[in-house]
């Protein structure tokens, strides 16, 4: 494997499960070495199937997959030595201690003796499990188990780490802690991470590049900002203190259009919505224009386009709808309809502007 070869290259992956369910339909993914790549999509989109193929667990009907420089179909053994896998389901032995789980995992990769024990203790320490290391895993909390899972995947210092829905089923606090761990891992020298998630916020926060997966194929790919940037600008919402009549509304729209800061002005009662290339910069000009027309403003909010907007554009449906519709690879941990917004915050997973009652304000202010 040369230094600049991608860590993962797969293309034209097709996989049909017995019963005719087509899980992958021309799936392709390329992950540059040393980066964090996110596969984002609702349940049943084909993310887990892709991971199973890349980790040599399943074979595609057709297509090619090269992981860490080895052909996953022809030399699965070589791939297995180079990768670490944290699957959706824990897989840790509940009646063994955390440390025993790590030791066994290390032995399977040929680690022995002092080096083995040292590595296990190092990982226990790193994942804040030292105190729990000698307790049976069945006594662990969900967050502790998940941290152990990641430690298991790292035991043999893999080149490529697969994280299949690493935070599904965790409470918000444990999820935030896991995000911090993953961010720290990403800084590790040379480690490539491929993570799957159906949380928009998670992909936005952790991945340098994202592929949006829908119905077994990638529908859009790029950096989170790049994908959002392809949408035409920020949404600017102005709440007027009283509902303008039709004539006033037309006048206001013209005035706003003339100040050249915003476009696509629409009215809904006393609520005015528009798009701007640079939302925050447009706010003062919008306020000035409205003031000149004598319209009193109650509040202004600006929202960056979210990945939900991106998903809507490329998959043609809203993320949360797709998520409720698809259940093929639902692990059962999510209990079906997973919220697109696990933390209750809406900065990345915010709703599209026309449904936004509570669009978070990056700039917000009242006038008069």
């Amino acid at each position: 494997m040369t230094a600049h070869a991608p860590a993962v290259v797969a293309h034209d992956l097709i996989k049909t499960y017995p019963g005719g369910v087509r899980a992958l339909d021309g799936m392709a993914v390329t992950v540059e070495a040393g980066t964090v790549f996110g596969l984002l999509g609702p349940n049943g989109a084909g993310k887990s199937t892709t991971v199973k193929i890349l980790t040599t667990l399943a074979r595609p009907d057709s297509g090619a997959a090269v992981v860490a420089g080895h052909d996953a179909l022809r030399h699965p053994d070589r791939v297995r030595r180079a990768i670490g896998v944290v699957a959706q389901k824990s897989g840790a032995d509940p009646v063994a201690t955390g440390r025993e789980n790590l030791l066994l995992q290390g032995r399977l990769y040929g680690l022995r003796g002092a080096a083995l024990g040292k590595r296990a203790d190092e990982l226990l320490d790193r994942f804040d499990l030292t105190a729990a290391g000698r307790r049976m895993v069945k006594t662990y909390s969900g967050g502790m188990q998940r941290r152990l899972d990641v430690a298991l995947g790292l035991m043999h210092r893999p080149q490529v780490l697969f994280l299949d829905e690493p935070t599904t089923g965790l409470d918000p606090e444990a999820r935030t802690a896991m995000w911090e761990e993953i961010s720290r891992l990403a800084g590790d020298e040379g480690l490539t991470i491929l993570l799957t998630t159906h949380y928009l916020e998670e992909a936005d926060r952790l991945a340098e590049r994202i592929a949006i997966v829908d119905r077994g194929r990638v529908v859009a790919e790029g950096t989170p900002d790049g994908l959002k940037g392809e949408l035409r600008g920020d949404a600017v919402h102005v709440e007027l203190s009283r509902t303008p009549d039709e004539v006033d509304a037309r006048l206001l729209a013209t005035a706003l259009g003339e100040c050249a800061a915003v476009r696509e002005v629409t009215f809904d009662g006393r609520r005015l919505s528009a798009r701007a290339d640079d939302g925050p910069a447009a706010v003062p000009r919008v306020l000035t224009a409205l003031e000149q027309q004598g319209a009193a403003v109650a509040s202004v909010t600006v929202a960056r386009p979210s990945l939900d907007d991106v998903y809507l554009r490329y998959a043609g449906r809203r993320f949360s709808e797709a998520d409720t519709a698809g259940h093929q690879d639902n692990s059962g941990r999510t209990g079906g309809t997973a919220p697109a917004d696990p933390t209750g915050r809406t900065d990345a997973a915010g709703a599209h502007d026309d449904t936004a009652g509570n669009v978070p304000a990056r700039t917000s202010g009242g006038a008069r």
Partner: protein
Amino acid sequence: MSTTLDQTWYMTQRQLMAIVRQPVFVVITLVQPVIWLFLFGSLFRKVVELPGFGGGSYLDYLVPGVVVMSAVSSNMWAGMGTLEEIERGTLNRFLTTPVSRAALMNANVVQQGFSTAGQSVIIVLLGKLGGADYPGGIGGIVLLIIASIMLGTVFGAFSNALGMLVRQRESIIGINTFLLLPLTFLSSAFMAPGLMPSWMRHVADFNPVNWALVAGRSAMSADPDWGDVLSRGGGLLALALAAVWLSTRTFRSYQKSV
């Protein structure tokens, strides 16, 4: 090859530790043998007096029967453990490591063999406590236990294959409930062959459970018929090898369904 042996041992160790750490299950699995040995044994104490049974003590006769029956019944549940490991994701975790597939499968067989041996020894000792006599000595007992391990391997491997293919607890429970008693009753476990209805005796000739009993009882007698021991033991060995081969094959079809 040494890696496969190493790995087999690590995986076996893991399973044995799990058993040792859940002593409740060990106790539960011994309840049934105790019932058969002492309740059933006392209830039917006088069957040895039937003409043609051959006399002696019924407990002496019953101990090999209970050892063999317990080997079947405990190994029949092996698939439940496999199913649990699949559902928990443990099997998939191992399958994405470079661990030898043979080691994964062999560990099941070796662990079941250890468990069957341990269980058999306890039953033999319980029988001894209850006053049973083993004229064949230690050698005879060892051969009975080996026969039980081979028989257990057959049922364990089938159960594992079933767990991997069907992946439903109900199927394993159903098949086990359906098979255990008929297989036991269609053997000389509880009744001397000479007193069985002739059709049952003929069916028993083809019943591997009966092979283990014929081989074990003969080895444990004062004057073993080595021909019986070898022929039945050979049959069991061939069957055990075939069953292990079959369950290794099911690994592949499991991976296709992942």
